[in-house]
């Protein structure tokens, strides 16, 4: 009996862990866990799949499979679709983009001069490379600094003398302020800087035009054929306004933010009033001001270019928002940073330049870039005051008898353009954030 009850099995070691059930691992497990986990989630999943199935294939079919790229009018487009895909089929008529592509790109810029904006656009990448990627050589920053004038000269043309003399302004100012002025007030930085700014502005206001005229009459006209502002349009106009606004708003915004944080009451009040005023009104009212009101503020008889007025307004608008973002960055710094800078004996500008701003700007990067994106999107508003940016071009095209009734193709094209630019900017900001992150 005892032999019957002998022990049949004794574990000699640990049983190896068995694999998890097949339906909890691999693709099936993933699907169960992520898509059909509970009733609500299953419903959501099914609804999402239904939406995707209902929306995506028809769009692909309409846009790509049945799209027409070569036709002279909307009617012709439809005929081609019906002829190739049978009665009742509908397809996108991309032919309108094909026909108007140059208008979308350059507006009414003279066709024989297209190379100038293209060159300016390509140089733009050279100019922003050192700003975007720290691996680029630092000397390129000088080119970035000079780029706005080069681009201005390329796009608007005109005599090179004016551009060169404008460029010479800061040099003249420096020479007057820090070299010639030395005899009067010695080695004083603040007075020197003030005299420099004053001399530069005076040079720009009173010296550039007469000297340029004199140079033109003596040496002769050197430069490009001038192009009027009202011939700018399309994406060229959007990018021009956007780039000037972006590069102008950052420095102005920094100054405004510092002013708002300042302990000097008058300076602070002025900055607060400016910032809150600009942020309190819609851009469109400021564009109205640019288009109908700005001439009231100038001495009687003067008036300047509408595009320039719009650019100024857009820049001021963006800089107020930029100031608030940077102020957020400044406020995010612990007060220990300010105190440590004081303890090291740094003066205000040294502390700001070496301690405060680098950290504040780093904190503010996401906000700064989303401001840039907002500014670039806001350039479409200039169509409301009659400038022919891509959105402003849509209505004339839709009113054209050949393309009457076309809708989705045009809007999708313009939207896609803005989307590509804005989306890549936001991705770049994420990359930058990750790169600059010093803590874990």
């Amino acid at each position, binding site marked *: 009996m005892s032999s019957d009850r002998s022990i049949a099995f004794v574990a000699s070691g640990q049983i190896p862990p068995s694999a998890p059930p097949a339906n909890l691992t691999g693709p099936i497990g993933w699907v169960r*866990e*992520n*898509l059909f*986990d509970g009733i609500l*989630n299953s419903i*959501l*999943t099914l609804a*999402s*799949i239904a*939406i*995707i199935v209902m929306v995506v294939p028809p769009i692909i079919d309409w846009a790509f499979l049945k799209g027409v790229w070569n036709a002279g009018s909307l009617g012709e487009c439809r005929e081609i679709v019906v002829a190739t895909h049978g009665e009742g089929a509908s397809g996108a008529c991309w032919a309108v983009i094909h026909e108007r592509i140059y208008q979308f790109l350059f507006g009414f810029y003279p066709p024989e001069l297209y190379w100038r904006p293209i060159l300016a656009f390509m140089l733009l990448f050279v100019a922003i490379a050192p700003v975007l990627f720290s691996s680029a050589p630092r000397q390129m920053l000088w080119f970035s600094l000079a780029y706005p004038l080069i681009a201005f000269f390329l796009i608007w043309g005109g005599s090179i003398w004016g551009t060169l003399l404008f460029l010479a302004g800061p040099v003249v100012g420096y020479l007057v302020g820090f070299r010639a002025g030395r005899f009067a*007030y010695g080695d*004083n930085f*603040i*007075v020197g800087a003030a005299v420099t700014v004053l001399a530069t502005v005076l040079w720009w206001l009173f010296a550039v035009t007469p000297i340029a005229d004199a140079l033109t009459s003596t040496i002769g006209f050197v430069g490009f054929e001038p192009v009027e502002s009202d011939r700018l349009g399309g994406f060229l106009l959007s990018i021009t306004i956007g780039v000037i606004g972006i590069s102008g708003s950052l420095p102005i915004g920094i100054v405004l933010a510092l002013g708002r944080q300042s*302990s*000097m*009451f*008058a*300076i602070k009040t*002025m900055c607060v009033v400016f910032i*809150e*005023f600009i*942020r*309190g*009104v*819609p*851009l*469109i*009212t400021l564009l*109205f*001001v640019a288009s*109908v*009101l700005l*001439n*009231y*503020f*100038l*001495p*009687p008889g003067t008036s300047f270019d509408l595009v320039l007025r719009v650019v100024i307004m857009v820049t001021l608008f963006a800089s107020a928002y930029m100031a608030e973002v940077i102020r957020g960055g400044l406020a995010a710094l612990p*007060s220990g940073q300010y105190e440590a800078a004081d303890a090291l004996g740094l003066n205000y500008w040294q502390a700001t330049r070496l301690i405060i701003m680098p950290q504040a700007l780093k904190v503010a990067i996401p906000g700064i870039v989303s401001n840039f*994106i907002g500014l670039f*999107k*806001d350039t*479409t*508003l200039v*169509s*409301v005051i009659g400038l022919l940016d891509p*959105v402003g071009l*849509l209505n004339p095209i839709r009113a054209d008898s050949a393309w009457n009734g076309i*809708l*989705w193709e045009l*809007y999708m094209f*313009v*939207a896609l353009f*803005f*989307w590509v630019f*804005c*989306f890549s900017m*936001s991705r770049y900001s994420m990359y930058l954030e990750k790169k600059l992150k010093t803590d874990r």
Partner: protein
Amino acid sequence: MSVTTENPGVSFRIDMLWNDSRYRSTFLQIVALVLVMLAILWLVNNVAQNLAALGKDFSFGFMSWPSSYDINQRLIEYTSRSSHSTAAVVGLLNTLLVAVFGCILATLIGVTAGVLRLSHNWIVSKLMTVYIEGIRNIPVLIQILLLSAVLDEALPHPKNAEAILGGFLTPTNRGFYFPGPVFSDGSLYVVLAFIASVCVAVWFGRWSVRRQQATGEQLPDFWIKLGIIAGTTVLAYLVMGMPIGLEYPELKGFNFQGGIYARTSLIALTLALSIYTGAFIAENVRAGIQAISQGQTEAAYALGLRPGRTMRLIVLPQALRIIIPPQISQYLNLTKNSSLALAIGYMDAAGTLGGITLNQTGKEFQTLMLLMGFYLTISLSISFVMNLYNEQVKLVERTSVTGGGFSVLALFGGVSGKWEVLKKGDARMQPNFGVAGWLNLVVLLYGATFAMMLYYVFLEPREASNSYYLWSTGHQVITLLLTVFSAAAMMTCIFKHYRFIDMAAIELVFFILAVLIGLPFGDMTVGVPNSVIVFGGLAARLAIIGYTVFGSRPNVTFFYRVREGSHS
């Protein structure tokens, strides 16, 4: 080696203005101020010269001229014979209409999308990412134009229109038609019953909280409150013989009549703005929820709170502190973006004041000033309220004290004892601690003043001869200031901010000024004699200020400031 900071032997030299830190700040400020003054002077001078050259004057009298244009989407009575000021008000209300509905819809869309993007359901969160990243990066103007064009083309003409949602909505390419409420005799009592039931429900809520604090027992508050409100209202509705009904729009001729009408452009604008803003709100919501650490939820569970209460009492209060400020700026953006209505022909403030009125009267300067003033008023009042809110919820920091700056309270210091600015974080300084309930009636006083002034200035149909825009400048300015400061006093009182006393004092000054220049208070309220408003208002204001300064209880905690020695 000794260092002297003050050297009395050195007399003042001119370069000390910019080299000596004692004078530099003042000197720089004076220079900046002088430069700005000169610039402003130059600009004003230019404007005056330009206006004179064009033969234009600078007055707002044109606002009382007949507008002679039609607005087909309006919330108040308006014909083409009404004045430009009425047209402007119609536009302002239209802007607010879009803003309010847009904000509600955007919040719904945004919160849903934000929460779903955090869902661990892969396909849903990816779909929401596509929505957010797609919409955020496309200019809103394009979306508005596209949606408006699509609605115009896709919807049927009124002749072929069919009602959907059980007759509740009739979409056509002219606009959307909803059934509207019709009030017949006795509906007033239903409304009154509703208001009374809300008051009872509020009172019940307070009683229930006190009871819970005393005994620890909880009642199903929400259901009881709902029962009180719905039960009373439905009962009154039935007793009065169902006086409120719905009027359905009917096709007469080429168009629908009756019901509520919303133009296609209004629908397109609201939808486009809320879809666009919703994408931004979704990101705010996501960031706010992600910022609350998991430990908070776990700690709440460890204390035995159920998930619903954990969300309501632990997570949401913390998340809202992060979510609300950017949320408000999104609402402001939506309101400002609603000015793009101009592009699709919806008559909002920019379309009336900055559009047709500007073009008809040729007063670019004044109309744009008014338009900017309107948007500025909205933005500034919302940021004023936001600042009050932020001071309530912000975390205590080393250097953070409420107060600072000049306050009228300092003047009372000699009379009512010394006042001290308290650090936040003191439990007795929490906003709702020990507030005398009747002080909420103060809100009503200032609210009534504010509403009355607004109505009187902007809405009341009056003869063109005594329109606000034809008053003398002094009257106009004081009226505006009184309106502004009654609103400020109301808001500071609602938020229990110590600046309330300041605002109330300033409001009192403008009230007295308004009485002295003879503002026709009697005209503003039908039937109430002028003297009652003047003396009653004066007495009420003095009583409020006296009580908040000298009174025994509310000022100790109500306004964050205490008398020295009354706490320790």
